[in-house]
């Protein structure tokens, strides 16, 4: 008899323990935010988290979604595809309503499969590889442009405005970097420019001197690089050290204040394509002011993450906080969203109907600092 009481006691204790764990959390709406919070690309992860947190705070202050508050659950994929899958599984198990992420295309693609299986809505603020939406997973969206659109702008600019003849195309063999490089190459071919060099480097390498010497031998006018800011900074710096004056052109992967820090004085004159600066959109003014008041400059992807959360929140609101990704997706595809970055509409694949890539130029602002501004 005593034994039975003992078992009942344990049973009761376990039940009690479970109810404590589950109790207070249920009133929240969990939204996962996944990206490279650690690793060499941690700067971008910080932008996503900052943007998402600010949006969530704003929405919570206004009463939340149908009376429930948003809770942001961060997930760190370090831009590693394997870790991205694991993070995606963890977020699904934690019961998130939707996910704003991931950052690197190579992480977003495997992670999106996990969300698709679990029927969870995913909106990436930053992954621009065409494959993200070209696989037509029903619950996958993005609030940024696509590399083929970005490559078109870069390819046209190099061929028609710069009128360059000897172009070297370098990429980092990653889904994003190579995708962007290929898109630019295709556009250049259409414009009648054939590249003199097309090669891939390895992420994590530090020494690109032999590549630079080779480009010097080929007398290139323009180096187009598809990749991220760490390698971009090293390549352009080593090019200038060797006296190679070719103009360096890259994509939105170098939009970070770490890029000028790594490249040093070589930053001057570097070109890149990026969406029209979201900070300068009138509807973003109050959000930008709030960021700056908190001592943070909302550069690059910060406002994209903000937008992703706003779209998620509005979709949840209109669908009674449903977790059903397919239902949310159907709503998103037929609705116009009013976001900090202006009105946004999505097509049947989950891409934005209107993309707004323009060419930017890095130039010194005095005191060894650099900033980018749109080329008129």
């Amino acid at each position: 008899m005593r034994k039975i009481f003992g078992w009942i006691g344990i049973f009761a204790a376990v039940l009690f323990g479970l109810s404590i764990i589950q109790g207070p959390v249920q009133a929240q709406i969990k939204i996962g935010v996944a990206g490279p919070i650690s690793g060499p690309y941690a700067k971008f992860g910080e932008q996503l988290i900052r943007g998402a947190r600010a949006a969530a705070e704003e929405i919570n202050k206004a009463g939340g979604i149908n009376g429930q508050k948003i809770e942001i659950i961060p997930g760190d994929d370090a831009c590693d595809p394997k870790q991205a899958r694991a993070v995606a599984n963890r977020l699904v198990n934690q019961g998130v309503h939707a996910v704003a992420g991931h950052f690197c295309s190579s992480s977003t693609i495997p992670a999106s499969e996990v969300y698709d299986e679990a029927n969870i809505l995913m909106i990436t603020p930053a992954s621009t590889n065409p494959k993200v939406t070209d696989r037509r997973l029903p619950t996958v969206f993005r609030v940024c442009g696509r590399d083929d659109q970005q490559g078109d702008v870069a390819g046209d600019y190099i061929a028609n405005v710069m009128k360059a003849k000897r172009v070297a195309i370098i990429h980092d063999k990653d889904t994003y970097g190579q995708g962007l490089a290929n898109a630019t190459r295709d556009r250049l071919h259409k414009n009648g420019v054939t590249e003199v060099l097309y090669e891939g480097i390895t992420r994590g390498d530090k020494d690109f001197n032999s590549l630079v010497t080779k480009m010097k031998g080929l007398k290139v006018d323009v180096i187009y690089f598809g990749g991220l800011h760490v390698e971009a900074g090293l390549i352009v710096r080593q090019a200038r050290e060797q006296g190679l004056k070719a103009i360096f052109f890259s994509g939105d992967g170098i939009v970070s204040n770490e890029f000028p820090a790594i490249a040093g004085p070589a930053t001057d004159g570097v070109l890149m394509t990026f969406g029209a600066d979201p900070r300068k959109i009138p509807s973003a003014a109050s959000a930008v002011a709030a960021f700056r008041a908190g001592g943070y400059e909302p550069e690059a992807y910060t406002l994209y993450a903000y937008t992703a959360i706003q779209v998620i929140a509005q979709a949840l609101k209109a669908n009674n906080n449903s977790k059903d990704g397919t239902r949310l997706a159907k709503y998103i595809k037929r609705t116009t969203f009013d976001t900090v970055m202006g009105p946004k509409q999505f097509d049947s694949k989950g891409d934005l109907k209107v993309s707004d890539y323009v060419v930017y130029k890095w130039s010194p602002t005095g005191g060894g600092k650099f900033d980018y501004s749109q080329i008129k």
Partner: protein
Amino acid sequence: MFTIGDPLIILAQQLINGLILGSIYGLIAIGYTMVYGIIGMINFAHGEIYMISSYLFAIFLALVGLFGVSSVPVALLITLVVTLVITGLYGFSVERIAYRPLRGSSRLAPLISAIGMSLVLQNFVLLSQGANTQIFPSIYEGVLRWSMGSKDNFVQITYIQAMIIGVTVVSMIALNILINHTPLGRACRATQQDRTMANLMGINTDRVISLTFVIGAAMAAVAGMLITFNFKSFDFFIGFVAGIKAFTAAVLGGIGSIPGAMLGGIILGLAESLFAGLVNTDYKDVFAFGLLVTVLVFRPTGILGQPEVEKI
């Protein structure tokens, strides 16, 4: 457009690029090869020691500046000494904590312990210093150029790159003298040949092994400082890639042999640079490792390695 001198100039520049890269690999490889030579284990935490030295260098240089040392050469000299000592201490502690308690156990135990140590150090730096890429200021910018023909045709080497090659050569000579011509070196060689016997002859082998780790770590610190100087940026993950390349260099040259580590580093650096420069960048690592496999097929102990004699 091309003049006749062009291909030659490019080739000469690629040789210099390869030589610099090779010197860097060689400097790190020495740490692997010394430890293997003395106690027959591979110290996988060595790449992390190199990474830590980069951080220490940057931190101490900033600190020395804060304490009001305004002369750059003096500041550099103080930083250099402090970094060498502290990195040496790291090497000493790693051996004391992770390897000495396992001496006499199976060969695999210290290997696993080394991998664990490498993860511990990497995450320690990640958590204490953050994940961001760290930036090092530009000091001693300058370049030597030999022009041939026109103004734009030149072969060049920056001051820092020249320093890398110079320091590598000096370190090699100093180490060789230390090992081959001093009582300390004799104790090292005796420990390498037969640890028990050396102990019986009155050599404190534990101290010799500790010293090996300190010297290995100091060499990694030399490499770490020079590379930080050269690339001006580093993060907590640089030890991994550099460690793998240096380990490859050590195996290629014959692990256990100090001149072998240097030779292996230079061959690896030249192979990578020439292949990337003359053929294709995508496959440079494939080519470098293919070269390693080929050498090991014909010489299993590496280029300068001695066949291992089974000790009974």
